[in-house]
């Protein structure tokens, strides 16, 4: 992307700031709906960083797939399982949080150390800029053809698997009359796998 250095720097700083603040919000906000919307912002800032890195095709794929599909899917899941329940308090929660902060800071220090001390062989070969789209297409249909096809099979399997996992068991016949049910909205009552932990008895077994 042909921008002046100062413009590039300002874009980089703005996008990284939005990225990191949004990621902190995703992790820390108590309301999970706000987290999901902030995740959309994080993914959009990531697409902006891809544009700064001369990758317009991947930026478009990021917006289409992540913001358009994955984020919407997460929002749908939140609406489907949105149960406002007070979480049971745990004994060592604070200690666990502090320990994990320590672990994550250590990991961050390690990664930053590696990134800063390795002598990267920059500058590499000159960037081909907007011709990257053509190059990606060549890669997909020559030397990365097998992974490309396997990825499509993987998507098909994931689609079928998601449908099978999330499908409801429906009653094929009306309970009272025995006639075949013409609409699949009656969900069979399923007993939970274990009795619930607050001591209440499990629900009645299914007919």
């Amino acid at each position: 992307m042909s921008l002046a250095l100062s413009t590039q720097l300002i874009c980089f700083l703005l996008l990284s700031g939005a990225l990191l603040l949004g990621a902190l919000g995703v992790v820390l906000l108590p309301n999970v709906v706000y987290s999901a919307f902030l995740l959309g912002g994080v993914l959009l800032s990531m697409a902006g960083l891809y544009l700064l890195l001369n990758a317009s095709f991947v930026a478009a794929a990021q917006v289409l797939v992540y913001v358009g599909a994955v984020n919407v899917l997460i929002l749908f899941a939140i609406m489907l399982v949105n149960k406002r329940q007070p979480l049971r308090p745990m004994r060592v929660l604070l200690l666990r949080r502090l320990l994990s902060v320590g672990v994550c800071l250590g990991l961050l220090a390690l990664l930053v150390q590696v990134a800063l001390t390795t002598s990267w062989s920059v500058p590499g070969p000159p960037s081909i800029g907007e011709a990257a789209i053509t190059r990606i297409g060549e890669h997909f249909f020559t030397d990365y053809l097998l992974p490309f096809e396997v990825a499509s099979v993987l998507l098909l399997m994931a689609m079928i698997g998601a449908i099978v996992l999330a499908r409801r068991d429906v009653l094929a016949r009306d309970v009272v009359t025995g006639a075949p049910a013409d609409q699949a909205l009656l969900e069979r009552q399923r007993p939970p796998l274990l009795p619930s932990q607050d001591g209440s008895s499990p629900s009645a077994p299914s007919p």
Partner: protein
Amino acid sequence: MITITDIPLQAYLVVAAMLFCIGVWGLINSRNAVRVLMSIELMLNAVNLNMMAFSSYLDGAQVRGQVFAVFIITVAAAEAAVGLAILLSLYRNRDTVDMEQFNLLRW
């Protein structure tokens, strides 16, 4: 077309490392199962940012990092779909999204 050696490569790597660590922290500490999936998305995005930075700075002629990033995006989409389907089915069975109560396999 100017070269992009102006912003150092390490800046992108540090940003990606921070994003990855935020994702790890959220993965460990979230009690809502949907938030765990969102943390996994954050980590996958951090890896993608590394791929794109290396592809642009070290492999400018053959942009293989972008090809790998497209594959990662594909796998992430499949993972999100299957993960949310598992979550839905789990919610129907246990009637909760609290990670601390998904302890069927705990010894």
